[in-house]
């Protein structure tokens, strides 16, 4: 699906996606790291439960919303991966005040 450019040699960062340890490159956005790891479906819509994944990669489309470290509705494309980050699929809409 997506391949990393071969001339880039950043150091690695590890995070978990739905509990599964996953590798990313330093400075990847969460969205880029998920796509690079082969995850094209990263949330389910509130209305129909249909699968969605990162689309615009620039903060506009809100298709890449995920839960990060317990906080819902985070834009994966605008968030840089950090070591040990907990990323999870967001299923439906979040209720404010109900974060882990």
């Amino acid at each position: 699906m997506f391949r990393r450019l071969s001339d880039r040699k950043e150091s690695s960062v590890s995070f978990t996606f739905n509990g599964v340890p996953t590798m990313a490159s330093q400075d990847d956005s969460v969205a880029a790291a998920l796509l690079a790891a082969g995850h094209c479906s990263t949330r389910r819509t509130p209305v129909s439960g249909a699968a969605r994944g990162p689309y615009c990669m620039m903060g506009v489309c809100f298709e890449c919303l995920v839960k990060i470290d317990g906080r819902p509705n985070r834009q994966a494309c605008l968030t840089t991966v950090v070591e040990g980050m907990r990323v999870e699929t967001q299923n439906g809409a979040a209720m404010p005040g109900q974060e882990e």
Partner: protein
Amino acid sequence: MDYDVIVIGGGLVGVSIAWGLSRCGQRIAILDEGDVANRAARANFGLVWSSSKGLGNAAYSRWSRTSTANWHRLAAELKAETGIDTGFVQSGGFSIRLTPTELERGIASMARLADQQGMDAEGTPPLEYEILDQAETRRRLPLIGETVAGAIFSPLDGHANPLRLFAGFHKALQQRGVHYFPHRKTTAIRHRAGGFEVAGEGWRLGAGKIVLAAGIGNTALAPMVGLSVPLSPSRGQIIVTERLKPFLSHATGYLRQTDEGSVLIGESKEATIDHQRPRGPITAVLAERALRTFPLLRDARAVRIWAAFRVVTPDGYPIYEQSERFPGAFAVACHSGVTLAANHALVLPRQISAGALSEDLSVFHSRRFHVPAAV
């Protein structure tokens, strides 16, 4: 004549009227500015609200209530014609009162409104409302803040998705073959041979009738055809949150959750046309009031804060008038293009087609602003 009617202004007021005129069998053109137009149609709160309007003008209260009732038909017909759902719900609206003083003021002004002469007319839904104390407000809105003093509830009120409404009208007009001309800023209107010639840079079009629906632009255009539309801009700010699980199905006066889950927080008014940036102190007041109203919003993140502007007449009521010197030239200006969209689409066009505004609308003529006031 190129057209039966040219509508100047492709915002919500203009397209509502143009759609209705098209349904009356008229050949219509809409002249619009480009994306730089100051478009209240793209920047408003989306309330369909009549219960608290019209203190000092019973006709305005009736006109607003009639339009809310007509909204059901508008929503159904737009959906049938375009497939676009405007998301209109008339689930009732709460006017939240944060302090006892606010509640007392609200109770007093509703009583004065309801006591006015001429509030009732055949075919107009009666003004219904309830005063809710703190406990009753909490019973109906369990997530309400503990310090909220009470609310005024009216089953007449509701809300819609104004962007889908706007898109629905535009799509319907396109399907009907109505000619829509963007980037045509009207700079001159001349009365010619029983009709009107409308012109701008490098173009001119003729029509038997014209409707000025150009928002703040009406002020400059109106005198060209013997009309008067004094308007001032009113800048408003809104906070838009991330999409959240539905927790609020009713509209309130300054806070609502859309059918897509966003919470919109308003509302502010500043008499200015500068809307380059939202202003922090105003944003802070909006946020603080929203948190007192629904404390759970503490954890909601704002995704956008914007400022835009609407128009207001000197007394806040709409202007509907036909030129006496040049019959066939009409002007329409209002603050509540969403609430009044149903009347602008379903009632007004028949009158414009027939060439005479109804007696009901005579109080909205701009002669009321002239000094000495018309007797």
